[in-house]
Each structure stands twice: as C-alpha cells, then as structure tokens.
C-alpha cells in the first residue's frame, strides 16, 4: 500500500505509521509541525529502511492546506491508495463547557474540517478507481453521554459520515474504515484516569492494520470495546440518564 497518514507523529497515528512501515508499506506523514514531521520521518526510516517515507505540512485547522498536502503526498509516493485521518482535537466536557473558543475549534476540526479533508481525499482516490479511507472517530460518538456531550456529538457526526460514505462509494471501489477507539493511553488522554479496558496505541495499530487489509467498515479497538459498546448502545435512556459514564 501507499499510505498517507494525517496525524502520524503522535499517539495512535504514530503507532499506526510504524506498523504500516514495518509491514512494508510506504508512508507519507501529514502534520502541523515541520520539525515534528522531520523527526518522525527519521524514526520511520530507521525502523523500516526499505520503504519510502516522506512528509508535508497540513493543518486540520486550515482547510486551505488540505489540497496542496495531498498533492505533495501523491507526488512523493507516486500515487497513494490509502488515506488515514487520526488527527483531532480533544477537550473534556468541563473544559469545553467553560471555553467557548476551544469548543468552536473542537467542533470545527473534529467534524467539519475532518469531513472536508476526507472529501479532498475521497475525490483523489475515486479519480483513480478507489482505495481505502481510514477515519478515526471514537466510541464517544456511539451514545450521547454525560461526560462527553460535545466531543461525542462531533464524533457521532463523523461516524455517520463514514457510514454514509462507505454505503455510497464501496461499489465504486472506495472502502471506508471507521475506527472507534475506546480509551487509549496517549498524549491526548494523559492526565485522565484510565478506565478498565484502556488500550495501548500499538494494540490499536495492529487492529487497524488488520481492518484495512480486510476492508472492515467499523472497528472497535481494543477489541473488548466492541462488547462494551454493544451493551452501552442498548442501554435504555432511563439508565443512561442515571449512570455517570
């Protein structure tokens, strides 16, 4: 595969980029900081000397950067066939309720801009007969819940977009993989108390790589979250209203 990873310098994206490169796939990193990108490119080169690795700047907060970044990746890789979006912003419910500016950024980046980026990737992939689009949503989007009303709403929108996209374009050759991580111990969740079934980014990377190869439309990861969420999705509203999670 020739893969583009937006958000591949940190967290789950870093682990996934490493897993892709170690598995023999070319990787083009997109991200905000040129220095971070350069360091991550060196890391991937040292880990997988035989694959092609490169990077271009791209910022989910500025949609103008999407087209040029994808074009640079396309030129660098000689045509990509897989695009991964792991970048996102995060805030706890308390932070988002208290900081309207942060809330606007989170809603905009995690939903609107992520969709815009996916659209830019989609048109490019479809123009050459398809490929795979991997979008990191979250279990937070599966139910409206007290501790994640706002972040969860953005992720719910993103999950719905992924499902629609998969229905609409799979026949045309574009497979959409919606990744729903549960709690994963990354820089994004640093400082939060890990619940049971908290996962490591490397576990997520293995699950996602397998899903990409199989074309699985929805991936809960780590796997235990599929069971957790199967229950949570079925809980009646009067129960959800009472419980704290």
């Amino acid at each position: 595969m020739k893969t583009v990873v937006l958000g591949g310098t940190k967290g789950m994206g870093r682990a996934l980029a490493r897993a892709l490169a170690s598995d023999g796939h070319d990787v083009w990193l997109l991200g905000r900081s040129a220095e971070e990108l350069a360091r991550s490119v060196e890391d991937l080169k040292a880990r997988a000397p035989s694959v092609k690795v490169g990077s271009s700047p791209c910022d989910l907060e500025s949609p103008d950067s999407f087209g040029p970044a994808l074009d640079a990746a396309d030129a660098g890789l000689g045509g990509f066939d897989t695009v991964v979006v792991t970048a996102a912003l995060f805030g706890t419910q308390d932070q988002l309720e208290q900081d309207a500016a942060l809330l606007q950024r989170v809603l905009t980046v995690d939903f609107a801009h992520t969709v815009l980026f996916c659209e830019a990737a989609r048109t490019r992939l479809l123009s050459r007969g398809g490929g795979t689009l991997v979008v990191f949503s979250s279990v937070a989007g599966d139910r409206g819940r007290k501790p994640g009303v706002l972040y969860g709403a953005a992720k719910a929108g993103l999950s719905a977009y992924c499902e629609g996209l998969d229905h609409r374009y799979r026949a045309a050759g574009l497979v959409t993989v919606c990744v729903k991580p549960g709690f994963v111990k990354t820089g994004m969740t640093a400082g939060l108390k890990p619940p049971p079934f908290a996962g490591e980014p490397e576990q997520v990377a293995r699950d996602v790589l397998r899903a990409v190869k199989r074309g699985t439309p929805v991936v809960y990861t780590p796997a235990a979250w599929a069971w957790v969420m199967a229950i949570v999705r079925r809980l009646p509203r009067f129960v959800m209203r009472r419980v704290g999670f």
Partner: protein
Amino acid sequence: MSRNAPPTLSGWGLLDRPGVEHRSEDLAAVTRGAVLTRGLGRSYGDSSLPPPGTLDVAGSSRADRVLAFDPATGVLRAEAGFSLNALNQLFLPRGFFSPVTPGTSFVTLGGAVAADVHGKNHHRDGCFGEHVRSLTLRVADGRRVECSRTVEPELFRATLGGMGLTGHVLEVEFQLARVPSPWIVFESERVPNVDAYVDALKEAAPRWPMTVGWIDCVSRGKNLGRGILIKGRWAEATEAPPRPPPAKGKLAIPFLFPDWVINPLSIRAFNFLYYWKHWQRQRAGIMTPDAFFYPLDALLHWNRIYGRRGFTQYQCVLPDAAGRGAARRFMEKLTALGGASFLCVIKDCGPEGTGMLSFPMPGISIAVDMAVTDKTQSIVDALNAFVISEGGRIYLAKDAFTRPGDFRRMEPRLDAFLSVRRKWDPAGRIRSAQSVRLLGDSP
C-alpha cells in the same frame, strides 16, 4: 479502592506514593518546569517518584522516536523514552544489540543513563554510560544543553548514574554493539557454595564476555550461597541459525497476589527446586538473547507476586579490597538476619567508569529481593553497616530504605556530585523522593 482515592505512583517494588505521571510524546513540553522525569518505572524504590508535597512528574515513555541511525557505525540517537526492548526488537535482526543491558529490557534510554545501568558484561564492557556519546538535557533553568565527554564534561559525568537529578534527559546518542548472530552460546554450572562461586566468577571473567548467576540465600552451613553460574557469549554466525528466534508470547500476573504467597516456606521450596532443577553439574548450548538476558521479562508484572505490601531489592557491591570472603560474610549476615529471598543475583564488576555516582566498582555485586515487612528497615540498616565496614556501596536504582547518614558514609564521591548539581540547579528544583530522603534536598 475508592473511586476518589488520590492517584499514586510506585516503583517496581510497588511501594505507593501520591503522584501523577504526565506521559507525552512531547517530552520537551512536559519536562518544562517538572521536578523529575520517569521512564518505565523499573527502578525498585523511590528514584522515580516525586518528592513529598509534589504530585507531578513527567513521563518519557511515549517519547520514543529513533532520531538517527548509521548502520555503518552503529551509532544511534533516540528520544529518551525509547526502550531497550524496542531497540533490541528493531536492531537485533540487523546485527546490533544494546551495548549494555540490565536484567529487564523494559527500561528507557533516559532511565539507563540515569541509573547508569550495568549488565552481565560489566566486567568487560562497563556501564551503559561508557557507550554514550552525547546527551541532550533540559536543565533546571529550562535550557536545553548538549553534553558529552568534551562538551560540558562535568555535567555529562554527573548525569551518568545521577538518577535524573542533574536535568531531564531528552535525547541519548550511543554506540550499539555489533553482534555476529542473534543467539547466545551459554554454559551453566552448579556451584556448591559462595566462596567457590566467587572463584568461578573470577575465573570465567577473562574467557566469557557475559557472566551472571543466581544463588540460594536460604541454605546455611556448607551449602551457604550455593548457586547456578551462567556464562555466555554471542554465537558466531556458523554456530547458530541465521534468523532471530520468533518472539514468544508473554504471561502476565493478572493481579496482586495475597501477601502469604511469599513466605519462608515457599521461598525455601523455590530455592531448593531452582538449585536442583539444574541437576547436571554442567550444561551448555545455545539460547535466545531474551531467555539469556531477560528471563523475568517473560512474566509481565511479576512484581505482583509480592502482594500489596510490596518489596524491595537490596543491591550492594563489595570491593575486591575486602578480600575473597566478603561475599560469604554478606551471605552469613543476610541469612542470620532472616532476609530470605527468591531472587539473589551475584556478579563480578569491572572498573569504575565515567559516571560520577555510578554504582559498580571492582568487586562482587549481590542483589536480593525482599518482601517489605516490619523488619525490612532494620535488615537494610544492618546490611548497610556491614557494607560500609567492607568499603562497599549500594545501588540507588534499587533503594528505598537506606538512611542518609549511611549513604554519605559509603559515598565519598557524593560531594563532587552535589557540587556539579548545585552549579546547574542552584535552587534545587530537580529532585525526587529519593533525593529528599538521601541527599538532603528540601521537599
């Protein structure tokens, strides 16, 4: 455990302290203003814990990128959270291995530098620090400082073995060891007592690049300190399969065992079985580097077998100057005190290295695990008195119980270290629970 219990941190010995670790890929950001950085938390005592009254420490283990690798020279530069486990997995198939490794691969480069770790090859290759070419630190005033044997050499020497107290290690550049194959040729033998053991170690040293052994620390009399000595070297390409062995699945201890699991009887039984499992007097063959260097890594969370009370490891080095019987006298003292242990590891050390406060000195190093009980403090005090009288010293990466006066008596090098530290951190910002306990830092 209540939901709102204050968060705690502990070292490998599972002795809890209030604390929160802030792990981030962006080590440069989380170390800004932090009192201490911890890696994978494999130091046993309080080296990686915040001083009393402070909760937050930076965590390096997500900052794990390789920044440069030159396959022609084997020089590697990486972020401080890169672990020896990742290093060996990545580079053993390409013919390189960590130049020095402790008994676990779950240590970060930053931790390996801070403790200036030693391994089975100490008598030949010295500590980890001997192979470090340069370090990037965040010092107390927030600056990034590059140091090496030629640039800021004092800071460099104080940082090797300085327990993270001279600054936050951000990047490490060091020389990997080139290995002819991914296998180890070993020879192991049963040794009837501790004096014979020390002789066997010294005799093996010139012929074997790696030696280590386990001794029975329950038996007394003529069996005192009987054990198994293991000697190893990297196999030549002609002696071993060309491919590294497939990684084995690991077992994990899923929860804290009840405290009664480790008791005098189970310890005695274990020591007896472990000794006689090696029923042949000698064995030889090839084995995997994982089995040779990291037998305990195959059992994740093995520290949980000690239960809620936690445990400590007492590790000291007894100098050659103390004479051939020093190790025997130590074992006599230990068994008389009742400090029984599952794991008692013995190894000869080579010369002192570059690190100002590094643990090893020419002599015999002995490490014993002990469940923490009411008697632990008095056992450690008594062992320290013995070690001081023999001219030896303890290993800070294992310690949780030594008293400051005892430490000062066994560390004539301490003042030189503290003066370098004062120069770079006059306000005493960077500190740990251990430095407050042992070095007189204010909390």
